[in-house]
């Protein structure tokens, strides 16, 4: 298993339960999406898998494994994880070209190879001509592309994505979904993709995990038996897509409804 969570519970300040008794397995090369209402702890779970939670305020019980090794049993570098944030998390003081080399620089890759790799990926992501721009000088969509390129550059085996397209407008979101699909179909990597957008989850993933409202539990798991290569645009109009959306929405709807009621 590439990512494996066994009865994982996460508490904040020893009292508030964010994630409750979650078990899930993601096979090597599998694309899995997690959907759930906001505040259901799906991002927290992703952070726990990446070992990014502050142990002073978060208590994680249960076992999390990446490629069969517990999180503290290996260095982060050996775990070779990629993480794409909702906000691009690019370094504002570096150009896009410099930003995309970050992971390679951390791995001590020489300047020549770093540059070659970064340029190749930048061209692939349609960012050619913007290498020397700073993040604030380009659009949100371009920043998120650069952020994706930065992650792909050091070839992580497993990529965790936390609502990576959530801050983009609808058109940009669809374009980037199509590009992500293309990248994954060409070079299958394990992807665990958190989103609150059900359509996005269905278009991209092989499996969709539905989480309940806080404290987040696994409510249902749906296999998305749509064949690859998928066309992110054409798929949305298909009957198969509509059927899946209706089915999974049944499970999700109650959580949204309950979430609104509890909040009110």
């Amino acid at each position, binding site marked *: 298993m590439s990512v494996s969570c066994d009865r994982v519970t996460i508490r904040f300040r020893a009292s508030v339960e964010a994630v409750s008794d979650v078990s899930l397995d993601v096979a090597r090369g599998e694309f899995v999406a997690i959907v759930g209402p906001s505040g259901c702890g799906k991002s927290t779970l992703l952070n726990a898998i*990446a070992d990014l939670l502050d142990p002073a305020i978060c208590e994680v019980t249960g076992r999390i494994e990446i490629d069969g090794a517990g999180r503290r049993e290996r260095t982060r*570098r050996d775990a070779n994880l990629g993480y794409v944030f909702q906000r691009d998390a690019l370094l504002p003081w570096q150009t896009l070209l410099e930003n995309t080399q970050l992971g390679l620089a*951390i791995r001590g890759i020489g300047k020549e190879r770093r540059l070659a790799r970064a340029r190749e990926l930048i061209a692939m992501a349609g960012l050619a001509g913007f290498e020397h721009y700073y993040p604030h000088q380009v659009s949100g969509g371009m920043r998120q592309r650069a952020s994706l390129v930065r992650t792909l550059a050091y070839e992580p085996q497993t990529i965790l994505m936390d609502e990576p397209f959530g801050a983009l407008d609808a058109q940009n979101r669809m374009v980037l979904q199509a590009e992500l699909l293309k990248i994954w179909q060409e070079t299958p990597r394990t992807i665990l993709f958190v989103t609150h957008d059900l359509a996005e989850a269905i278009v991209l993933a092989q499996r969709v995990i539905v989480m309940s409202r806080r404290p987040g539990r696994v409510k249902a798991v749906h296999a998305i038996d749509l064949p690859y290569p998928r066309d992110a645009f054409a798929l949305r109009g298909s009957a198969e897509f509509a059927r899946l959306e209706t089915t999974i929405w049944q499970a999700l709807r109650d959580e949204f409804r309950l979430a609104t009621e509890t909040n009110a």
Partner: protein
Amino acid sequence: MSRTWSLALRRTALIVAIFVLWEAVTGGFGLGIVLVSPAILARPSSALGELGPYAQSGLLWRDLSTTLTEAMVGLVLGIIGGAALGLGLAYLRGTSEVVEPVLVSLNSLPRIAVAPILLPLFGLGIASKIALSFFTVFFVVFFNTYLGIRSVDPELVKAVQVMGGSRAHLARFVVLPSVFSWIFAALRTSVSFALTGAVVGEFVGASAGLGYRLNIAAGLLDTKRVYLILLILMVFAVTLVEIAKRVEARLLRWRPSATLGT
């Protein structure tokens, strides 16, 4: 472009108008209007006339270079010292909690008030002026560094950590650039603080420098020279701040606000 030119023109016109008015009310242009006694307010033309003798005596260059040296050495040392202490304390959270009240108290002290005690410590030479300049800059930089570290974007830290970055990587890619941006954002303030420190230090006791010469002229009621030195100081300060602004815009060109300039 034409808007820039018209603005420059209007700005120059205002400065010229101020000088013309000033000249007119101090007995200039043969008008015979003397609203303010020349002993209090020198006529600009006579003040500028002092430039020749001042420059020819060789004192102008000596004073300028003395004050510039004091201010610049104080500035550089202040930046280095403030940044070092700010970085050090931010990493030693336990110590910083203990030291904070002391630093806050020192900072609340009007910086130039320590000038008299610096004199016996460092003597009449440039060292005491450098010390005062350093002292005024140090706290600006220190507090900016300290705040800079605390305001590092946690998401950037996570991004570096998840890629397997070490503490050294974090410092190099996230913490230091973030801190430098705060230090350079305070560069303009630091430059004028450094100059203030140098000039005030010269007031208290010196053997050269613009502040020293100004103080002597004031004591001799040599109003012409007083105003000349004030004008020189003004031009001097504006030039330094302008340079600081350029440096800042260049170093912080990655920032949306810095590239716009003011």
